[in-house]
């Protein structure tokens, strides 16, 4: 009976199997093998640890890792803090809630490239609105946001925070709205004020959701590429806005060094696996229902 069922199931499963085999499992295995190839292309193989040694000595890669770490650990906490505030305010109101939710989620569905160009214009040193506002408010001189190693990464981070709010606000608001209102009623009977309620009830109950958006945020932040490419340009390296995926892209596209690209991608993969494992652990630890 069981033998027969796999035969029946196979025609349905086969198309997806083939696609995943060719475009997911094979390239995954190949990335590992290629990363140990001392020669740049898969035409010839000479397996050694050399690629990783080069990679970790490559100033550009170290710089890319540093930029990625800064980007991740600056944008994600700030974005979540802002999102928590917005979500708390959204759940406290009735009127216009759907309107605000619709507005906040809009950046999620719009092309990062197109929006990055608008931000590029806003950030423009000579004609940009941001410099106009900063000049009026603080009397600052015009800042060359995009084309200056000192500011490029800051511009990318501001854009990154703006873009990531959409997802975080949605998930946190959904999480907050699903908290049992009984808790709030009880708190009100006990005379707790809004701040106490937020920190003593909302946040602890929301902890699994917060840890979830934190992890997803970090994973996405470690993969930042389009934001950099569209805002800073293909020479992001020069403006010190290089990131790990940008490095992979450069190795692949510009230098055709598949081995270095693979080794960098294996390191990225390992970081993301650690983050995913961490998130599993964190969500188990913070889940009230589970304990």
């Amino acid at each position, binding site marked *: 009976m069981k033998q027969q069922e796999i035969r029946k199931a196979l025609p349905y499963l086969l198309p997806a199997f083939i696609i995943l085999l060719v475009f997911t499992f094979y390239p995954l295995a190949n990335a590992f093998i290629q990363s140990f190839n001392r020669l740049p292309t898969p035409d010839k193989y000479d397996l050694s640890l050399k690629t990783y040694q080069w990679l970790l000595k490559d100033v550009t890669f170290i710089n890319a890792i540093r930029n990625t770490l800064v980007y991740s650990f600056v944008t994600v906490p700030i974005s979540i803090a802002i999102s928590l505030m917005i979500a708390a305010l959204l759940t*406290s109101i009735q009127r216009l809630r759907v309107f605000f939710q619709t507005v906040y989620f809009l950046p999620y569905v719009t092309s990062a490239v197109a929006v990055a160009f608008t931000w590029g214009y806003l950030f423009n040193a000579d004609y940009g609105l941001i410099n106009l506002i900063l000049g009026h408010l603080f009397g600052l001189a015009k800042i060359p946001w995009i084309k200056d190693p000192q500011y490029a990464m800051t511009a990318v981070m501001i854009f990154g925070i703006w873009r990531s709010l959409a997802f975080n606000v949605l998930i946190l608001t959904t999480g907050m709205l699903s908290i049992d209102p009984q808790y709030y009623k009880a708190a009100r009977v006990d005379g707790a004020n809004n701040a106490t309620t937020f920190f003593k009830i909302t946040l602890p109950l929301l902890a699994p959701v917060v840890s979830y958006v934190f992890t997803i945020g970090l994973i996405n932040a470690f993969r930042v590429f389009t934001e950099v490419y569209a805002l800073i340009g293909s020479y992001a390296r020069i403006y010190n806005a290089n990131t790990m995926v940008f490095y992979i892209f450069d190795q692949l596209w510009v230098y055709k060094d598949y081995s270095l690209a693979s080794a960098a991608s294996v390191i990225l993969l390992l970081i993301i696996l650690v983050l995913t494992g961490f998130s599993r652990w964190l969500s188990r630890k913070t889940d009230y229902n589970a304990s």
Partner: protein
Amino acid sequence: MNITPKKAIGKTLSYLILGFFAVITLFPFYWMTITALQDSNAAITWPPQLWPKSLHWENFSRLLDAAPFGRYFTNSVIVVIMDLSVSMVVMSLAAFGFAHYKFKGKETIFMLFLATMMIPSEALIITNFRTVAKLGWFDTYHVLFLPYVASVFYIYLLRQAFESVPKQLYLAAKIDGCTDFQYFLKILVPIARPMMITIAILKTIASWNSFMWPLLVTNTNRMRVISYGLVAFQSEAGNDFPLMMAASIFTVAPMVVLYLIARKKIIDGIARGGIKG
């Protein structure tokens, strides 16, 4: 209901803060729109104008003269349609295979599938780039979507939707002489339609906005999709911001329209994925 002054102030403050962030969220879209209608010289004067002195609708026709955005747009539409028609078939078939049949190692294979969700696509792109080069797939429509048609997370959602259908329906269909495939096509698919529509919409957004892969695997002007066309145009148009913004509107508008039509489905779909992990 007695509203204390303190409460009223709190409420007003809430709306003010929410309004402030709504402005921050929407402002780039406003800026994109009015810059697209701005005079090209006025866009590079200091200080920038919050409202254009005159509206230049001809910017859009100037854009179409400057670069084949009609072509890019059509390419994107074609890729989305092809992507949807192939991926919905591949994914729902696989979901049915997993939901309906029992065989040894099924759950192990499924877990293996789900585990691939943790792999950043950037790690796969290196080999895939070479694979499609060897297959001679550069500058084709199918190269733009085929590697991504078997989205594991959507197979998982569809499997759940199919499994929630009571077995009695299958037995009844059998008595009526349905084959398994007819049962899948005529009973399961219509029941799972809401889920399939949600998935199709989310896939449309991802497909339309995809950037890195099209950048790698298309070289000719003729095959460019809109996001790549936009980047290519930037290096040509340079500082003609109104044209750049007009091109950005071409890119953004279809998804904004889709979002306004299917807002609830999109938001529910993302929130569901979010909460379930």
